């Protein structure tokens, strides 16, 4: 039955949720510990995906993944299959150990609130709405180099300093859209994606412990925003092997996004608001390439789920008015390649749909793998890639429809050859995924 109440709720509530998501997103980035891979200094930063806590533990693909328990933000077609109103939020901790050819290493950490999702069905298992905030990219590198000034010829004192090249910020996405199940086999969906964010590269010269010497923070701050859209479809083929299985094939296409913005160069003694603007702010735009995703998910016996996915982004034709790490529009140089990502994963839920089994049997056990050929490379002769193992647990809670998810990820990025850096990273995520039935109409019996 079509519910007018739900439509009115959506119209009134979604704009507020969008604002909340944007505010929380900015707040989360402002409060986060902000150090990660040196490769996030290139382009618009290190690209991130977080379709759901479940999918992230299965390798991060899941384009064809249908679930009543999780919102899959990667493919709006999957939003049709909703029963409960859901809110989920997640935090991520990342540790990166960067090593160079001389075996020097540095350890960097990042802790951030990284995703918010809200969704509800308008028509159960037929028409669903979702709103999500998630990172698109993160720029969070930090390189520090200590030094000492020549002895002061007048005062005779020797001053030490610390040079830091620091990147912060990144692009975020607020996604809002609908998914609709056309028939038992086919669902379609579409979303509008608002991409926005700040990319800031700061070069700090700091004289630690010397209040009489003014630090110098030179920052290039680029504010960007723009709209794009995603369309998706899922094809569900039931009873493929047995009566209690199905195969779901999903595809999603995110259109190129033209982001416009302004770049400001500032000088300050710290990272506060008291900054001197150097020169004139520069307006410009850049275009993020399309994203094509294709994936399959096979669910067997309500206990086993297998997913396999591929993603493609043609960064080779990237265009920007702004110079970015690895890209200079004036010189006409670009170190960008097409991005290819492949992932696989499996989930085992011993209890299946039996809610009366012991706790450990109701835990979902997940394992995955992915390969990601990065869109940037500091050296044109070297293709920069990431391989990682993922895993996690989906823990049941006392609240029906609500799960607490813990995810793990460990991987390698880059190489120490060709004067490059190899990142050994690990990530731990924690997400809470509330599901409750709203808008129930009371009936007299």
């Amino acid at each position, binding site marked *: 039955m079509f519910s007018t109440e739900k439509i009115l709720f959506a119209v009134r509530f979604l704009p507020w949720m969008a604002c909340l998501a944007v505010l929380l997103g900015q707040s989360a980035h402002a409060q986060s510990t902000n150090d990660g891979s040196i490769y996030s200094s290139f382009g618009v930063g290190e690209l991130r995906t977080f379709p759901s806590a479940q999918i992230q533990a299965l390798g991060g693909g899941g384009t064809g993944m249908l679930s009543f328990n999780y919102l899959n933000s990667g493919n709006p077609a999957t939003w049709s299959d909703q029963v409960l109103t859901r809110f989920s939020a997640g935090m991520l901790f990342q540790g990166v150990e960067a090593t160079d050819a001389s075996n020097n290493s540095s350890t*960097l950490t990042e802790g951030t609130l990284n995703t918010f999702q809200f969704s509800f069905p308008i028509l159960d298992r037929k028409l669903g709405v979702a709103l999500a905030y998630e990172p698109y990219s993160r720029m969070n590198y930090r390189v520090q180099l200590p030094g000492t000034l020549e002895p002061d010829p007048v005062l005779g004192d020797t001053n030490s300093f610390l040079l830091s090249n620091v990147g912060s910020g990144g692009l975020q996405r607020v996604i809002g859209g609908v998914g609709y199940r056309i028939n038992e086999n086919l669902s379609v969906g579409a979303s509008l994606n608002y991409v926005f964010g700040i990319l800031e590269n700061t070069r700090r010269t700091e004289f630690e412990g010397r209040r009489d010497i003014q630090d110098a923070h030179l920052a290039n701050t680029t504010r960007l925003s723009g709209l794009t859209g995603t369309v998706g479809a899922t094809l569900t083929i039931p009873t493929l092997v047995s009566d209690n299985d199905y195969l779901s094939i999903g595809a999603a296409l995110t259109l190129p996004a033209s982001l416009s913005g302004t770049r400001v160069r500032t000088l300050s003694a710290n990272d506060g608001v008291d900054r001197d603007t150097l020169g004139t702010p520069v307006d410009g735009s850049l275009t993020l390439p399309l994203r094509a995703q294709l994936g399959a998910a096979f669910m067997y016996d309500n206990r086993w789920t297998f997913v396999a996915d591929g993603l493609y982004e043609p960064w080779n034709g990237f265009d920007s008015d702004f110079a970015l790490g690895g890209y200079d529009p004036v010189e006409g140089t670009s170190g960008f390649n097409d991005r290819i990502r492949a992932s696989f994963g499996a989930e085992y839920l011993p209890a299946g749909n039996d809610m009366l089994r012991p706790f450990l049997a109701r835990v979902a056990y997940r394992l995955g793998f992915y390969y990601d050929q990065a869109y940037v490379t500091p050296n044109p002769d070297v293709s920069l890639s990431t391989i990682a193992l993922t895993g996690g647990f989906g823990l049941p809670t006392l609240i029906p429809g609500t799960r607490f998810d813990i995810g793990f990820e460990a991987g390698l990025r880059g190489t120490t050859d060709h004067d490059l850096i190899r990142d050994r990273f690990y990530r*731990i995520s924690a997400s*809470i995924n509330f599901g409750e039935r709203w808008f129930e109409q009371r009936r007299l019996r």
Partner: protein
Amino acid sequence: MRLNRIGLWASSCLFLVTFAACENPGNVGEGLVGGLDGTPETKVLQASSVEPDTVRDVTGNVLVPTIGGGARWLGNSTRVLAGRVADPMLGTMAAKGYVDFAGSTSQAFRNGTVTAAELHLVPNYTYGSVVTQATFRLNEIREEIDMTSAKADTSFAENVIGDFITEFSIKPSDTLVVIPLPPAFIAANDTTFRSERFATSFHGFQISSTGTDAIRGFSADSSMLRVVSGQDTVDFPVTKILTTLTRESEPTLPEGYVLIQDGFGEAANFDFPFEQAGFGPSAINRVVFALPADTVATQANAPAGFVRPLLREVSLYTLSDDGDVARLGYTSLIDFRLGTKDARFILDHEGLTDIVQSRLEGDDTLSGFRITPDVESNTINPILIYTGNSQTIPDPGKAPQATVTFTPTE
């Protein structure tokens, strides 16, 4: 159920915060993000000009009541100078001191007859001979003088200074000088001393000297006018002071120096060629001025038993094209060792960093800098600063210098 949710979030946050503390950033990857760009550098600039200038020193001060029932001096100096000295290098200088007092509120004192009055002076400064005694003259002041923030070059109409009262001498070793006022002066001022309107009807004394032995300073806080009326002895506190200074002959300075002298307002204007120094686009991290002072030359040509105290504190000001002068701070003479040439004023004020940054960014409103004697104490102490003038330079290494630490931004 609610507690379960809160517990989940709290434990998750604790988990992330705990792990986020383990960080050890290093230089791995420096070649990918600019390497040593941002390394600060240091340049030492020689002053492009050092010129003598004169400012008007404030030597007047008044004691004002406070809300709590006490009193405080409005200005900085609580010393009054008087005397005359013939300095072989700085010429003959004369100081005239003016002191005024508050009266008594004692009814017993007002009902009696003044039988004695003494001026008590507590010396706390000597410039000149410390072996001969100096003679001073005391004159009455006939009219009210506004001493609030009055300058050292203040002059008065002839009729302001009244009759000669008495003459007295001060030996170099004196720590208290008691000057009995003549009976005729006491009798003439008996009703004035006892008047409720003493503050407006009595205008104080002028202290001067005709000799050339020394200029002495007296503590305003410790000096007083002691008056005896009947059985009552009352100390009238000093409430107003002023020192006027006159240079009766010009100084004979060695070449290559500029004189900074307290009281007479001898100052120096100077500047550095920041705009021509080739900093390029830069962030200024620190600016330090060093002004070497020649303590040997400052104390040269002094006769035996002659004290010429060194000026040890100076204030730094900025000068603007429209005539505005703004104080940045002050500094003391450092590395001072009597008999050496190692003394210098180090001016390391954070405001200098912003000023030089502004000038490099095209701000041409500031035209230079000035050092003056600091206003904290009332003296006539001198110091000789090297000018660095190439024609007369006595020691090229001692020219005023600016050490600029900067970080190129391109």
